């Protein structure tokens, strides 16, 4: 047995966009155990339901995360709509799906860029984020915002997208797909990238299942689970299959995210092709009374929203279980046995969002 050392990793580290701390127990250069510590940015957003009424809280829900902001807003609205038995217009369902899939592209491209940056491939990082900018431009043109959109509301959406703009989005995505193929080819074929990802941080299918992994973390280990298949929003009217890989390593997780970017392009194009005409929202009267659990598939994995209300305009409880919260135990498992040099890329491999996790 080699020398054992405990190395503190984070909360401030060049590779971490947000603060998380790990106590790494090392045996020479190998990690034998990792103990996580979070809590540096706990905002108590769930508690705010007692101060903001259920309509106002939509804006708070969107601010749980800067990357999945639209999906948090959508998950919250879907939960309230279920309690109040509100059926939103079909066009609103499609618009939500389009923005949700654009968010998935934006999130995965952001992660791919950060990942390239983490293993020192600066030009790949910049090219990936250059493509991401095009998605943000679409957000800005259709919602007015690049990060927080505020287009989702209880009863539907606030803004429509004109047929001309939908055609334009379709054309942008067609052009983007060609560039995406060139860039993602580097992620999947370049020897220096494969050296840093292939066979690194392997999470077996059984371990992913036993540790409650979700999203690309679980899919890369062979778990075929995607809540979009349950048909919420307009997903029930679109054709797709969950993407899975079986190797369970960093390369497989990268591959799942890359394939999900192309899948998102396809889903948006399908939605644009069949989006129905009509209204985009319905009037909401009264206050919610009851409780409901909603689950949606965010870019990082499944998220759960819970609302309990008792007929007042203020909710009794709002709870969100974010994907990163669910993936932390799986991260600790992948760190066991890895080299100290691989720790940064393995932390990134779960696509951590600590703001989401701590709320």
């Amino acid at each position: 047995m080699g020398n054992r050392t405990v190395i503190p990793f984070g909360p401030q580290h060049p590779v971490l966009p947000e603060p998380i701390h790990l106590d790494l127990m090392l045996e020479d250069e190998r990690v034998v155990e990792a103990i996580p510590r979070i809590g540096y940015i706990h905002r108590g957003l769930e508690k705010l339901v007692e101060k903001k009424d259920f309509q106002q809280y939509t804006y708070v829900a969107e601010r749980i995360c800067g990357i999945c902001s639209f999906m948090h807003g959508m998950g919250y609205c879907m939960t309230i709509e279920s309690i109040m038995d509100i059926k939103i217009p079909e066009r609103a369902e499609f618009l939500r799906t389009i923005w949700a899939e654009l968010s998935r592209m934006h999130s995965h491209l952001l992660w791919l860029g950060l990942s390239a940056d983490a293993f020192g491939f600066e030009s790949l990082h910049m090219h990936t984020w250059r493509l991401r900018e095009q998605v943000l431009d679409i957000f800005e043109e259709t919602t007015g915002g690049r990060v927080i959109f505020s287009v989702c509301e209880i009863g539907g959406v606030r803004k429509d997208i004109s047929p001309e703009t939908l055609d334009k989005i379709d054309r942008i995505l067609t052009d983007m797909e060609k560039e995406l193929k060139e860039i993602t080819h580097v992620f999947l074929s370049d020897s220096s990238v494969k050296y840093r990802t292939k066979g690194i941080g392997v999470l077996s299918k059984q371990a992913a299942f036993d540790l409650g992994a979700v999203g690309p973390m679980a899919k890369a280990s062979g778990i075929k689970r995607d809540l979009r298949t349950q048909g919420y929003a307009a997903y029930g009217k679109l054709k797709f299959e969950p993407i899975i890989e079986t190797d369970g390593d960093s390369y497989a997780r990268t591959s799942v995210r890359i394939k999900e970017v192309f899948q998102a392009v396809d889903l948006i194009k399908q939605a644009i092709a069949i989006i129905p005409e009509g209204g985009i929202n319905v009037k909401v009267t009264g206050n919610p009374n009851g409780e409901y659990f909603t689950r949606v598939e965010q870019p990082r994995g499944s998220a759960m929203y819970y609302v309990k209300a008792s007929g007042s305009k203020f909710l009794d409880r709002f709870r969100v279980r974010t994907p990163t919260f669910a993936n932390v135990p799986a991260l600790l498992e992948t760190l066991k046995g890895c080299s100290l040099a691989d720790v940064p890329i393995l932390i990134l491999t779960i696509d951590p969002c600590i703001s989401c996790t701590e709320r």
Partner: protein
Amino acid sequence: MIIGTCFFVSLISYRKKVVYYIMEQQIKMILPNELLTETLRLKNEGYRLVAITCTNKNGLELSYSFDKEYNFLNLRFVTDTKTEIDSISNIYSYAFLYENEIKELFGVHIVNIVIDFNNNLYKIPVKTPFNMKKEEE
């Protein structure tokens, strides 16, 4: 109407074994001392833990959410800050994060957590911030 009825049923049956549905979501009322047995049964049936939720309304209501092939099921009971609740982290190891959070934010007395942060998961200066009313009382 169905939701309202179910909600009413839940209010009058906290101490009884009751299974009811909110739309397609199953909520099974249990007693706190049945938690480990019920959780182990679900684990053996192939369910995965999705989340543990605490609601501070008419007591501390704990909901343990599970999933098996998209089938969503909740175990639920009501407790207080004094009653010891056994940790399920020996059955679902990854429950430790949920349990530490609930223990720290609501003051639920969860014992035998595999990794216990001793109310120091979050760096917050306030004790049980999500259960302030109870503290004042």
